[in-house]
């Protein structure tokens, strides 16, 4: 087993990925914890469930984001989760996260790593076909990998020396040097392992493929109106099982209240992203179900002026006071009905090398005491509080808490794009409320948000830099873990960040749905796998 082998820390090998820019919740892609490397690949157990009856009926989703045709193409996976909403229907991957498994064998029914760690060999499942009836072959796998140009494409291509196809069902990835994270990247962090039909694409060209995509997934493409509506139809030749629902319709409804109304009237069966009081309302309404999923998006307060000795935020006690001032439970109850997770870290608890901090504490009295000790008996004017305008509701609640202990701030919600560019360009001051749903592990997260030169780091601590440099070349997984835990502990103790929560993404399910497939795959915000979706026939 090789080391992560990072010679250059800045290599974007597992870069942070922002979620879809417009959706309301941050959704991570990575499902890389507990990877079963080299383990005996499990056959998809449910393959035999396929009922003899042909697919029937139709289910409609109210989608909160504007669907883009690039999402039909795994090669363009842009580093956000939203495309997987469509990929799970239209395409299939060699290995992908499935219910109960983070790396389930799909188009590959088996794979193994060479003992020297320098190559991976996959076997393509037998008798699997694309929607047009063509068989899925090793050539398609190679083609798909080489065609892949989405997120982390350069990293993968840099490390993969060659893709060999000794026979129609065997694909071998030859690495330049050992790369233990290869399977993570191939199976879940990127779209490189999602297979597209080589012949068809060469036939119709890239444009043609985008207009009429064909894949090996459980649903066939029927029609698409950009930003409006997408229709799928069951692919009866899907290998895993026969989909139960004949047609899937995804309708874009940007306004949350309207999604709820549509769900209630039965125009749609599943509505994505229903929050706050609307979720409460849905919970109260008989026949409707809330489907919350905790995703890997963490939220926090950041104090960009903590390195400026003249700033109040330079004082650790003030930062601690801010963290203590937040009424985590009430905020969670109010905004996400208590479904979010108060993990007290900027790193999702599912990440590799995650260090579990002590639970977050709400103690306004202590906060006031700390402020007084820092010389702010009557509180202080803390300037601006920047946030992404779509999370102004969270900001308002936090701001309330801060005001209560005497940290007086002025909310400055910025429109999303403006916020992120200002954040990255280090133009923001005072307090920043931000979030990340980026892929990766603890190290990548720290790299971007804590370390010198990190995209979103406004300053650094020398001791942390030293520790981080140390872990970057540490080959021993255990030692590396220790180092990263230590850094995380220091980040926690110094209150470099005041973490808020790990967001719960709440969806609504209507009466006609028996199985929405929401939450089946851990951390996946949307319905998946689609072949598991069923209609209530009773």
């Amino acid at each position: 087993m090789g080391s992560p082998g990072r010679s250059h820390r800045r290599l974007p090998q597992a870069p942070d990925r922002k979620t879809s820019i417009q959706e309301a919740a941050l959704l991570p892609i990575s499902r890389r914890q507990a990877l079963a490397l080299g383990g005996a690949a499990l056959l998809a157990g449910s393959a035999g469930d396929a009922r003899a009856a042909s697919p029937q009926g139709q289910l409609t989703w109210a989608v909160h984001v504007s669907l883009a045709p690039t999402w039909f193409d795994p090669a363009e996976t842009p580093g956000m989760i939203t495309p997987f909403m469509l990929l799970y229907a239209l395409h299939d991957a060699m290995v992908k996260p499935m219910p109960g498994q983070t790396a389930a064998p799909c188009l590959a029914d088996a794979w193994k790593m060479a003992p020297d760690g320098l190559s991976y060999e996959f076997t393509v499942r037998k008798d699997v076909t694309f929607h047009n009836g063509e068989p899925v072959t090793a050539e398609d796998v190679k083609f798909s990998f080489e065609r892949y140009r989405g997120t982390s494409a350069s990293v993968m291509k840099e490390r993969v020396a060659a893709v060999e196809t000794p026979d129609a069902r065997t694909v071998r990835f030859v690495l330049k040097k050992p790369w233990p994270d290869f399977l993570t990247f191939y199976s879940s962090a990127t779209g490189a392992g999602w297979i597209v039909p080589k012949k068809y694409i060469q036939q119709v060209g890239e444009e043609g493929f985008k207009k009429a995509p064909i894949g090996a997934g459980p649903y066939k493409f029927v029609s698409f109106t950009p930003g409006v509506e997408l229709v799928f139809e069951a692919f009866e030749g899907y290998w895993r099982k026969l989909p139960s629902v004949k047609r899937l319709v995804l309708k874009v409804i940007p306004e949350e209240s309207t999604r709820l109304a549509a769900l209630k009237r039965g125009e749609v069966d599943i509505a994505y992203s229903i929050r706050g009081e609307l979720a409460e309302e849905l919970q109260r309404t008989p026949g409707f179900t809330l489907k919350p999923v905790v995703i890997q998006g963490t939220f926090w307060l950041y104090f960009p002026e903590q390195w400026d000795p003249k700033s109040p935020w330079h004082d650790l006690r003030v930062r601690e006071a801010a963290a203590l001032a937040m009424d985590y439970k009430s905020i969670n109850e109010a905004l996400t009905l208590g479904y979010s997770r108060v993990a007290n870290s900027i790193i999702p608890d599912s990440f590799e090398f995650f260090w579990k901090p002590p639970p977050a504490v709400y103690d306004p009295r202590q906060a006031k005491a700390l402020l007084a000790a820092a010389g702010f008996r009557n509180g202080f004017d803390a300037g601006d509080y920047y946030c992404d305008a779509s999370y102004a509701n969270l900001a308002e609640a936090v701001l309330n808490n801060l005001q209560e202990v005497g940290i007086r701030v002025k909310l400055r919600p910025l429109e999303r794009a403006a916020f992120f560019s200002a954040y990255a360009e280090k133009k923001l001051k005072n307090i920043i409320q931000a979030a990340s749903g980026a892929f990766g592990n603890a190290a990548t997260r720290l790299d971007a948000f804590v370390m010198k030169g990190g995209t979103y780091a406004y300053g650094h601590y020398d001791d942390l830099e030293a520790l981080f440099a140390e872990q970057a070349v540490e080959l021993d997984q255990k030692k590396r873990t220790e180092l990263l835990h230590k850094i995380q502990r220091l980040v926690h103790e110094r209150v470099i960040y005041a973490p808020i929560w790990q967001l719960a993404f709440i969806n609504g399910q209507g009466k006609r749905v028996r199985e929405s497939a929401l939450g089946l795959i851990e951390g996946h915000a949307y319905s998946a796998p689609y072949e598991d979706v069923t209609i209530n026939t009773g």
Partner: protein
Amino acid sequence: MSVTTHPTAVPAPAPIAFWRLKGFPLIPVLILLLIALVAIFADVLAPYDPEIGSLARRFRPPAWQEGGSMAHLLGTDHVGRDVLSRLMYGARVSMIVGLAAVLFAGVLGTFLGIVSGYLGGWVDQVIMRLTDTWLALPGLTFAIFLAAIVGPSELNIIFILGGVYWTRYARVIRSEVLSLKEREFVNLAIVAGCSRRAIMWHHILPNVINSAVVLATLMLGIVIVTEAALSFLGVGVPPPRPAWGLMLADGKKGLMVGYWWLTVLPGLCIMLMVLSANLLGDWLRVKLDPQLRQL
């Protein structure tokens, strides 16, 4: 609109005879006065800080409804802030934003309209082409656009709305100046030796003020409603400031859930203010200046 090119004779605008209040919109004016008073004395009148609430007290209904209490006469919002206090301070924010934006648009548009109409020639061409261009931009979208560039703050919203709507003044004022320019007193002022600046300032401006004022009453409504729409899209007056438009946008989810007071009350305030301003404007329009009928 560029269809209002009919040259119409301008009757001498008589000063308003307030003692002859035919059809005077008494109720609307009283409403506007009331709003103004509340706005001025919000600090004294409001029982709570409008920006601070408590999550423990969120979604309290108005006092008369089951679950309501006298502590919060008009209930509380999604972060437990007192709705009555927010409405009172909201009057202030909305009035300031509305009036300032209208003033900004009015001053800019009137100035450009006068300069363009009076000087004519290439100055007129430049200003009118600019106005045409500006008018061809969809107003609300343009505002969103500007908000995305400068970031929303109360001051920015004022400039954005003013910057979007000055064209209406420029158009109307220019066409009025064009007809005023042909009036004999302007020619006589030239004969008397007045400079162009003096003519614009002493002879033209006083005669277009009426129109500008009428236009302002009508614009006030448009500005306030646009501000609400910006809030709906998340780029209006930033929270937690108590602006009516923002309250309405914030409360919109509550509408589906039965928290009617969060939307109905600020909606009512906006409606009353805009309606009153419009009714007053209509009356002024008829009263002051028949030229403005085409607005």
